[in-house]
């Protein structure tokens, strides 16, 4: 029990370290702005009033350490700062965009696991067979294709030529649940990359696991092939895939930002892109902290699950 607890401690420590580093990094990037940050940020509209507003909002007249402490203190209380553009609290903007993004990410994540595990197990049934070759080739090809290029082609074919689904989410007002047909293409595009990587890892793991002595022994004991495959081989095959979940979270996040821009969905990604375009630094920082912390937490969860599935695998730390 004790090595397990030591591992858990180290893993949690890494998570805390990652969060702290993330917060400092996000803060430090703003510090790295050349010259007077307020002038640099005002950029296209350098009128004195705006510069003064930025200076006051970011507290540029105080020392960097003081500001960092202030900012971190605010974060701990859920105060993410105030938008330079609209003057609204960042937390409010975040709450507005949260709904559509959660729906998008939730539906994708729900479909992702059964789809990729099913595809991986299917391909591993007969290694080198026609099904395996097709699935392996397709997943190898698609796994790094940019979502926007794939998405635009999918829109052209399925929305414009065939007219099966709407091309964008314009007109839904962000209420995606009420218009499930709007979700079809965005979720399809979002799934494209993670399904490929995870199913490849599941396939490789399944081939290894099915060829292992314990699988042979289970077969000798007279267990049905289905039981051997799903109950005995699969948990071991999932361990490497579980570690990939960390990377998947990164991809889903990037994917959500792109897909929201492409399908005009008013979610967090759109809020972020708008803030980047307007150089609304507090909003960008606040969203970066939220996205970063979500990534760290998901990674942590993925490692814990992996550890549970295959305790001998040395994950992280």
């Amino acid at each position: 029990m004790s090595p397990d607890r030591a591992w858990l401690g180290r893993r949690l420590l890494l998570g805390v370290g990652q969060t702290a580093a993330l917060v400092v990094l996000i803060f430090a990037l703003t510090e790295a702005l050349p010259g007077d940050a307020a002038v640099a940020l005002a950029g296209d509209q350098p009128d004195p009033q705006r510069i003064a507003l930025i200076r006051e909002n970011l507290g540029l007249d105080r020392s960097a350490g003081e500001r960092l402490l202030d900012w971190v203190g605010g974060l701990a209380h859920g105060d993410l700062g105030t938008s330079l553009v609209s003057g609204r609290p960042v937390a409010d903007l975040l709450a507005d965009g949260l709904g559509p993004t959660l729906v998008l990410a939730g539906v994708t994540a729900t479909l992702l696991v059964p789809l990729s595990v099913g595809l991986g197990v299917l391909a591993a049934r007969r290694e080198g067979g026609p099904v395996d070759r097709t699935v392996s080739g397709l997943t190898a090809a698609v796994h790094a294709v940019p979502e926007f290029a794939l998405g635009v082609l999918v829109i052209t074919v399925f929305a414009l030529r065939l007219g099966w689904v709407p091309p964008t989410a314009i007109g839904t007002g962000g209420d995606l649940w009420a218009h499930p047909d709007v979700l079809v293409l965005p979720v399809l595009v979002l799934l494209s990359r993670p399904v490929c990587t995870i199913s490849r890892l599941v396939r490789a793991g399944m081939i290894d696991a099915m060829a292992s002595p314990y699988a042979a022994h289970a077969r000798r004991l007279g267990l049905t092939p289905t039981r051997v495959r799903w109950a005995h081989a699969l948990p071991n095959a999932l361990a490497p895939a579980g570690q990939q979940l960390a990377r998947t979270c990164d991809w889903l996040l990037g994917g959500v930002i792109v897909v929201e821009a492409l399908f005009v969905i008013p979610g967090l990604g759109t809020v972020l892109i708008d803030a980047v375009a307007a150089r609304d630094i507090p909003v960008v920082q606040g969203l970066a902290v939220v996205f970063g912390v979500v990534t760290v937490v998901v990674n942590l969860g993925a490692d814990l699950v992996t550890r549970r599935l295959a305790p001998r695998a040395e994950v992280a730390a």
Partner: protein
Amino acid sequence: MSERGKRGGPGSRRPVARRYALALGLIALPLLFAVFGPLFAGPAGARGVSFTGGQGHWLGTDFAGRDVWRQVLLGGRSVVLVAVAATGAAYLVAIPLGLAAALTRRTWLAEVLIRPLDVLLAVPSLLFVLLVAALFRPGPAELVLVVALVIVPDAARVVVSAATEIAARPVVEALRMQGESWWRTAVGYVARSMRRTLAADCGIRLAGALYLVATAAFLGVGVAPDASDWAVMVDRNRVGLFLQPWAVVVPAALIVALSMGTNLLFDAALQDPDERVGERL
């Protein structure tokens, strides 16, 4: 823990050849456009009406009334150049870093070199690019640095794990006992021994860089709003998708083909029974 299992026995030569053919077929067209396209683009013609077809423009005109065919010829170079340069720059940092961490006998030095990378791995890559974009408004050269920075942690990890394995071999011990210099051991033996693993990893990183560069350009990072760039074309001409789909479909298809071709090419190399590159990937 070989994740490759016993894939691709001696009998699987033919499917691999077919994969190479498919990969080269996919990658050839976009790569030709990217490398030679600008030579054939010719001078910019007079601007016409936005989003029309015909009238001497066989792929129509784009959002600014420019000839789409000319934009397609010009638009590949930036994507490919930035991605290749970023991958190269990432290895320029990752290889010395990884070698130093793997070959040092001081544990604390290895920790100091490698732990920050574990932390950086937690930063979502596109988020990092956007964060930098919001603050610094990077151009293409700065985008190379940013993308390289995103790739370094992954690349360095691969270098460390490959170099650690090689550094534990008796040969390295013998080299040390003979009093060979660090440079001879590290560059002359360890770095040379892991070049195949690195070649395989390089493909993965290049595909990742292509993805990131194209996606960043689509979101308007590191490019001018009217740049001749396939990703920018997709973004800016989207509004005319109903009127003039070619201005979007052609560059999007070229990006997809480039990305798929790169992936398939390196995947075929990984599975090639004759080459056996990168055993542990």
